[in-house]
């Protein structure tokens, strides 16, 4: 019975992750919903499997799958997010701060010849770059 309760909690997490994936405004927030809640949901359902069978061999297998999920999910999300940011997938218009963008601006400003105002021109330029991408 405990196994089913754990499985229901895991499924609830997966449903919440699915709703977040569908409703969030842009890619990073969607990943925020799907990768964390989704992984936890899958791990909970697998824990329910271990509880249901109550066998050491199966529990070890479940632990291996869980460790593997918890190790690979952050790496996979990180790689996808990096690829998306670099290829210029637009952020939500409600984004408050994009610190990576500022770093990129500073890099651009260092490359530019001195003379014009580095801050405003660089940020405008990179803004245009990102929109063009």
């Amino acid at each position: 019975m405990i196994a089913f309760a754990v499985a229901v909690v895991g499924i609830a997490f997966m449903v919440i992750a699915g709703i977040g994936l569908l409703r969030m405004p842009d890619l990073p927030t969607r990943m925020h919903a799907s990768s964390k809640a989704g992984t936890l949901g899958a791990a909970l359902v697998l824990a329910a499997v271990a509880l249901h069978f109550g066998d050491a061999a199966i529990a070890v297998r479940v632990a291996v799958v869980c460790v593997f999920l918890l190790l690979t999910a952050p790496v996979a999300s990180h790689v996808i997010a990096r690829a998306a940011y670099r290829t210029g997938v637009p952020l939500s218009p409600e984004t408050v701060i994009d610190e990576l963008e500022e770093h990129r601006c500073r890099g651009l400003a260092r490359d530019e010849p001195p003379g014009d105002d580095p801050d405003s021109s660089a940020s405008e330029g990179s803004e245009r770059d990102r929109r063009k991408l």
Partner: protein
Amino acid sequence: MTASLGEILLALLGLPLLLGFVRLVLGPSLPDRVVALDFMTAVAVAASGLWAIATDNPVFLDVAMVLALITFVGTVAFARYLERRGSS
């Protein structure tokens, strides 16, 4: 014939699968679709676990293990492809 508790839970898992599928269809960008696919394979891992409960057959845990392995490789390959291809 009445459905067992495991089968009912399996049916409940169809809801997140459907939500992920809607995001997969809507997009709008390719990374969005990759994330949706990643989520759907996480749901499939959970589904094979529940199927192991419903049929009382622990063999399906191996399916979950292989699925978890394959989806990681697939996601990283997609990300490599996206970065090489450049802007969308």
